[in-house]
């Protein structure tokens, strides 16, 4: 038989002297140094380098040019940047709101005790997030193909004329939103469902005994308790939506015109099509700043709540 002996730990503080004469603080620093160095190399290094690039005129074809300080950031004042910012905002707000409503509804449904085959539904609902956006985009490009696609064929059965979908300026953004919702709702669903499952049931039971209706329980008990999870979910999804790039690249290339061009795709175009690395870096930093500001605001709201 194995016995486990318990020993009493000595009283301990960060400032306690050690037998080797070195402070615990020293050891803390020593053990953390590799991590700090790796983080500096992997995260801070590229960030600083790209910031340095954003201060230069750098077109790859011509090589590194002069230091222009914040001249590349003047792109913020252009109509072009205003246009892509507006598209990004529209896309972000629409997909986050719609995906949240759908995901929350599905999470509530999955959380019902009377639901059978819950694991199967959950598995099916998780499938989209398991697929890469490239595969999703290719699938929907074919489905929405004006001539070959199943969507137009189905519509034709009820007499609706062929639509251009990704090629129609009036429908392109809505079609991208549809694909995004299909692909990304699962992420919100799993987070909200996990949040619901972890809620204590006592307050819900108490409310039910007190005669509260299902809606009252949802509004006055479940939602307030779930608020931190909801905020984190919204925050994560807003950040990823602001950076939308892969679906745009595969579905529309930002077109028709610039109807679906987001800030990320604009930065990509500046960098990889115009080979203007200075401007591309500046736009990326502007986007980074927007994401940081949004994160700080939401974290503050969470803290206050």
């Amino acid at each position: 038989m194995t016995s486990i002996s318990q020993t009493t730990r000595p009283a301990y503080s960060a400032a306690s002297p050690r037998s080797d004469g070195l402070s615990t603080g020293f050891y803390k620093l020593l053990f953390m140094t590799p991590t700090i160095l790796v983080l500096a190399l992997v995260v801070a290094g590229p960030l600083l380098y790209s910031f340095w690039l954003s201060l230069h005129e750098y077109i790859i074809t011509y090589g590194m040019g002069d230091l222009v300080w914040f001249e590349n950031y003047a792109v913020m004042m252009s109509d072009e940047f205003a246009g892509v910012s507006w598209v990004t905002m529209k896309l972000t707000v629409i997909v986050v709101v719609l995906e949240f409503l759908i995901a929350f509804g599905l999470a509530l449904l999955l959380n019902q005790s009377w639901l059978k085959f819950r694991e199967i539904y959950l598995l099916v609902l998780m499938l989209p997030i398991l697929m890469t956006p490239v595969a999703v985009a290719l699938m929907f490009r074919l489905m929405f193909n004006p001539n070959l696609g199943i969507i137009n064929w189905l519509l034709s059965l009820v007499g609706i004329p062929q639509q251009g979908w990704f090629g129609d300026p009036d429908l392109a953004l809505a079609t991208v939103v549809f694909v995004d919702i299909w692909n990304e709702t699962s992420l919100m669903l799993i987070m909200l469902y996990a949040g619901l499952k972890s809620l204590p049931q006592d307050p819900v039971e108490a409310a039910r005994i007190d005669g509260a209706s299902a809606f009252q329980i949802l509004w006055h008990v479940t939602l307030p308790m779930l608020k931190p999870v909801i905020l984190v979910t919204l925050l994560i999804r807003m950040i990823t939506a602001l950076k939308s790039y892969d679906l745009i690249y595969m579905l529309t290339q930002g077109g028709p015109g610039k109807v679906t061009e987001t800030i990320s795709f604009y930065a990509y175009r500046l960098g990889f099509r115009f080979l203007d690395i200075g401007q591309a870096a500046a736009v990326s930093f502007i986007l980074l700043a927007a994401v940081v500001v949004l994160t700080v605001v939401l974290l503050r709201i969470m803290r206050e709540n």
Partner: protein
Amino acid sequence: MPRLITTRLGVMAASLLAASTALADPAAVCKGKTLNLLLETVPDSTALIEVAPEFEALSGAKLNMEAVNYSLMHEKLVPSLTASSGSYDVLAVDSYWAGEFVTANWIQPLDERIAADKIDTSVYYPALMDVNGKVKDTTYMLPFWQYAMGMLYRKDIVEDPAFQAAYKENFGRDWRLPETLQEYAEVAKWAGQHTGKAGVAMSGQRADPVVMEATNYVFSLGADFYDRETWEPALGSPEGIEAVTIYADLLANAAQPGALGANFDDVANTLKQDKAVFAISYLFLMPTLQDPKESQVVDKVAFARMPGEDSLLGAWGWSIPTNAANPDCSWEFIKWVESRDVAMKRAMAGGQATQAWIYDDAEYLKLWPQMAAVGDALAHAKGLPVMSRATQLVEVFAEVMGDVLANGTDPATAIANAEDKFARLTRGDPLLK
């Protein structure tokens, strides 16, 4: 019989001798090496992949060929070319990348190698050497395949007497292929209404598809992006504005549904499904239109030169990256792939040959009769300007077209709005001095 055997043995011996002579150089510099190539997913790449084992057997090198969609090629190449040691040993360079690659010093001049090996570059169509062989009188590429553009049309429809009678009734003249861009637009719109199909299959997708197509309209009317003497922007000329206006009109009133989001694959599919009468597109679509496994219009489509003045001429050229690991072996591959036998094999397999003599070969023309139109198409074609930022010229023109087609901006205003961008692209360009 014995005489035939003797003859065959003689031919085999001669072939082996020729092969061993050709083998000497590749094997010496290539044995045990791997050559990485980046190719576009087009019939020429398929044709190359079919004959590639021959080079591996001759040289002892391994060919690692990666064929990707066009839109991915430039962005895969640039990071590789800017690195000190690149991922690719042989490049297929699109004609409008040539200036950029030369200015950035990403590809090697080939003149010394050409002279040392006595390569005859006069076998190529001169227009192709101009558009994608030489930059400022130095040879950087040997033309790999050409993408002549022009008018694809349904010959079964337009040669139908009922169609021609209706045409005469509508236009008051006997049937003829459109001779000007304006006439093309007029006929395409009418043909669409008359047949119940799309008058024209179009590719309005940003950026390369719409630009490659619409540039034909620009060149057809004699307009251009720049005055090629002063390098001042010139698209704002009345002809340039009219070209963009006609393109927008056709896209709105005669094209297949979803044309604004379509690329050239979609144009091919629209034609293959018997859903359009005309298209301004690539001659290299012919093999796929003639494939009975995927096309409903086998032997029903013909190619003619672009109505009006010129069409857009493009080509891909073989080049050696400056950072190639084995440039001598890369050159051996280029020599082999452009040798007469291999060039002919690729052409017979559906490739778009760049060597003029192939289009005079009776056996080739028997297999690909529609390719007889290449000479005429090349004689009335010109390329995008060879400038360091031609890749960006495509992006800026795509923005103009997007502004007109998606936002409904008047063509003159859209072009005027982009004038500063056009001007910035030529500023300080060493190739234009």
